[in-house]
């Protein structure tokens, strides 16, 4: 590698780092003061990019249009942040962390479909920045002028933020509130207004990042999710709530990204997650973060009500229907039922983690996908018989879960979630880029069941046995002393430790069991579809079971299959009638969080009691 190439890569890494810093600093700031982990931050970024595109084209200002559009778009997004904070977030500041996450995630869905509605799903190429359009020679190579300008702008923005935080009273209040919100109120400061102002500033920064990105990349419908993952990595690596940490981490991640592409092109996707995983394992609070006051356990107070019991006759009736009805159903419906069964088990396995154990995983797709790939690889490379391959699915997933779960259960709530995400992304990147073995994004095809199981009914009953059986086993696990002990550790970790419970060991075992059944679900699913793709390990696949569990009701295992069924049916129906399924889902989620936080079973249970 020549020195000039190294310099060019370094510069392009820094340019990217500056955009990352803008976004991540806003995210970190919002978290630091309000304790809200704002998934919609990437959506604000995307929104500002599209607004800049439209404003530049429509403002009758000639070459100045772009330079007016950028601050205007950022300010509009700041204003949108104001609306979101006042109308939605204010209601959930005291709710469990998970509900806050879901609410902002719902916004992601709504905004994504909104952008699709107004700007379409075609990629758009933004305007170049007038005056900065070309390239300049740097050490004998050409480098985009605009990127140089960004590198210059970055320190200016950092300096402006520094001035704001360290030289204004507002900044003093923000820093004080990051440490002790209640004391700030005792000193006469209105927290509500402080929170709103922080959210507006954070959204503005996200918007600025998005607006400035327009000349650098095409506008796509997925730029929200790609930036939010990266921004989270930066925030977590830097330490949640630390703006200097965000700057440091943005530079580290930006530069690693740039060189990763050069040195290990096939591993470029995975590099930043490897970095995050290593940093979280070595420094669980990030580079410049500080440990929270609470004890360090993976669990958290998600479930605040006692367990719900679904009456036995109801269960028996459901099982009987599942056995008797399919032969009279049209084939298409039988296939839908198989898919529901697989997702019911998938969601149920997540329930063991997040419901019973209080550990919210953002990477449960790993178990599903590793199970699916485990089975598919057995078929493709070992020519294993179908039932052997199906049995290998849960084992493969459990072994992997044992490996990465060992590290995950050492971290507390949000860091736990981020590390599970990191491992899922690493797994995703491996199957995505290891073409020779996994087929990359072409996936593996022709993973069909044995001939005697290939018919819809035969396969349905196999799925009923594997997934229904899996759920029944999970029910046993949750009711056994092991499950009871997990619930105890979730409710009060220090108390559980002082009654002789080795919490980490229990959480690790739960992680492995959840991986096992997630893998079984993935194995069942792969033979239904006949193929496997890296998507099975991607972020949406981790989010779906989360939504299902909450939709059904997190207090009971039975909520998971109920949620899976309702979700999949809605999905099937809604996608038939509308292109805006995400909007519908987002609206449902908002309703769930604000109106029915206890899910379907919770609502039904309340009715019956009343």
């Amino acid at each position, binding site marked *: 590698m020549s020195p000039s190439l190294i310099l060019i890569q370094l510069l392009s890494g820094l340019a990217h780092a500056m955009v990352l810093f803008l976004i991540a600093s806003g995210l970190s700031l919002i978290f630091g003061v309000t304790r809200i982990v704002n998934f919609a931050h990437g959506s604000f970024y995307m929104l500002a990019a599209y607004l800049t595109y439209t404003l530049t084209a429509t403002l009758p200002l000639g070459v100045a249009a772009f330079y007016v559009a950028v601050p205007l778009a950022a300010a509009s997004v700041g204003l949108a942040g104001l609306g979101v904070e006042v109308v939605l977030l204010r209601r959930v500041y005291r709710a469990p962390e998970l509900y806050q996450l879901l609410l902002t995630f719902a916004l992601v869905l709504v905004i994504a479909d909104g952008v699709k509605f107004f700007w379409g799903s075609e990629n758009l190429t933004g305007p170049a920045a007038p005056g900065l359009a070309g390239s300049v020679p740097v050490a004998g190579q050409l480098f985009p002028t605009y990127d140089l300008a960004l590198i210059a702008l970055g320190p200016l923005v950092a300096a402006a933020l520094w001035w704001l935080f360290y030289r204004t009273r507002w900044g003093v209040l923000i820093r004080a509130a990051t440490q002790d919100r209640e004391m700030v109120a005792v000193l006469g400061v209105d927290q509500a207004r402080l929170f709103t102002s922080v959210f507006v500033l954070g959204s503005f920064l996200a918007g600025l990042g998005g607006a400035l990105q327009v000349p650098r990349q095409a506008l796509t419908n997925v730029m929200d999710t790609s930036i939010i993952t990266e921004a989270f990595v930066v925030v977590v690596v830097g330490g949640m709530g630390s703006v200097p940490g965000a700057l440091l981490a943005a530079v580290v991640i930006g530069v690693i990204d740039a060189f990763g592409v050069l040195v290990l092109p096939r591993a470029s996707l995975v590099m930043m997650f490897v970095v995050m995983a290593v940093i979280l394992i070595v420094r669980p609070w990030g580079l410049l973060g500080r440990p929270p006051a609470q004890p360090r356990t993976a669990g958290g107070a998600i*479930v*605040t*009500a*006692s*367990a719900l019991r679904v009456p036995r006759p109801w269960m028996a009736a459901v099982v009987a229907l599942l056995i008797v009805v399919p032969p009279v159903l049209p084939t298409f419906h039988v296939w839908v039922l198989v898919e529901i069964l697989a997702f019911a088990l998938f969601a149920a396995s997540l329930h063991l983690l997040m419901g019973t154990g209080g550990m919210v995983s953002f990477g449960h797709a790993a178990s599903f996908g590793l199970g699916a790939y485990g089975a598919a690889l057995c078929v493709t490379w070992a020519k294993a018989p179908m039932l052997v391959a199906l049995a290998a699915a849960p084992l493969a997933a459990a072994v992997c879960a044992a490996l990465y779960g060992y590290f995950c259960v050492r971290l507390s709530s949000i860091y736990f979630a981020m590390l599970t995400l990191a491992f899922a992304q690493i797994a995703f990147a491996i199957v995505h880029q290891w073409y020779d073995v996994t087929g990359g994004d072409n996936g593996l095809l022709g993973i069909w069941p044995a001939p005697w199981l290939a018919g819809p009914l035969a396969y349905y009953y196999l799925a009923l046995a594997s997934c229904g059986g899996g759920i029944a086993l999970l029910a*046993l*696990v949750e*009711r*056994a*002393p*092991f*499950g*009871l*002990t997990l*619930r*105890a550790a979730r*409710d*009060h970790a*220090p*108390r*559980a*430790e*002082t*009654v*002789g*419970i*080795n*919490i980490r*060991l*229990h959480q690790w*075992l739960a992680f492995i069991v959840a991986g096992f059944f997630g893998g079984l679900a993935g194995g069942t699913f792969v033979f239904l579809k006949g193929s496997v793709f890296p998507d099975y390990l991607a972020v949406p696949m981790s989010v779906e079971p989360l939504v299902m569990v909450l939709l059904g009701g997190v207090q009971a295992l039975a909520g998971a299959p109920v949620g899976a069924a309702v979700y999949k049916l809605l999905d099937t129906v809604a996608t038939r009638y509308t292109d805006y399924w995400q909007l519908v889902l987002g609206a449902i989620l908002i309703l769930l969080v604000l109106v029915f936080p206890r899910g379907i079973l919770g609502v039904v249970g309340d009715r019956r009691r009343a």
Partner: protein
Amino acid sequence: MPEPLLRVRDVRKAFGGVRAVDGVSFDLARGEIRALIGPNGAGKSTFFNILAGQLRADGGAVAYRGEQILGLAPYVIWRRGVSRTFQITATFATLSALENVRVARLSHTGDSRMLRRPADGLEVERSLALLEQVGLADQAVRPAGVLAYGDLKKLELAIALANDPELLLLDEPTAGMAPAERGALMALTASIARERTLTVLFTEHDMDVVFAIAGRIMVLHQGRVIADGAPDEVRADPEVQAVYLGEEAWTT
């Protein structure tokens, strides 16, 4: 002289520049009920958290039945037979009172990782007996999250007794309770302790409670034991009076 159940030597713990526990040493004989008192910030809770494993000491030694326990994880210390309660009630809120005790019982019998049987049928009699003993049998099926505060304190005691401990550490067992209930709970605690020949070390603010049940009282001030003796001796100790009434600042 028989070997003490607990032998504490020169335990120290500092937070930044503040010496919260500054060289505490004492012996606790089997069957003793001793109170550890002192003004706010004296280091009582810090010391308790060190004994039970929640905090790591900077130095010193603690031998329980002749074995070192300082620095062990809380769950290991509990398994050795040292049980504790917390100042702010710590129970499993979504579990019923019976399940709260059951969790501890199952841990004691080594069955907390059992998978093959539902927990519902296990340790029923022993758990109910413990609830009975603290007077909570009629609340057995109610979730801890809805119990009255006084009942939570009783539940904590039942949980703490689940491993048939030899040493019971009670951190302000009556704090937050209605005054009228405090005496009754401590009388109950004392009678259970005598019945099981338990050794009890407790901190407490309520002096009525302290003098009613403690056989011996230790006074902690700025991380040091400044008095240790029979209740009447401690009461008559001029240094203790000075500390409690703040006279030391003006005596020099």
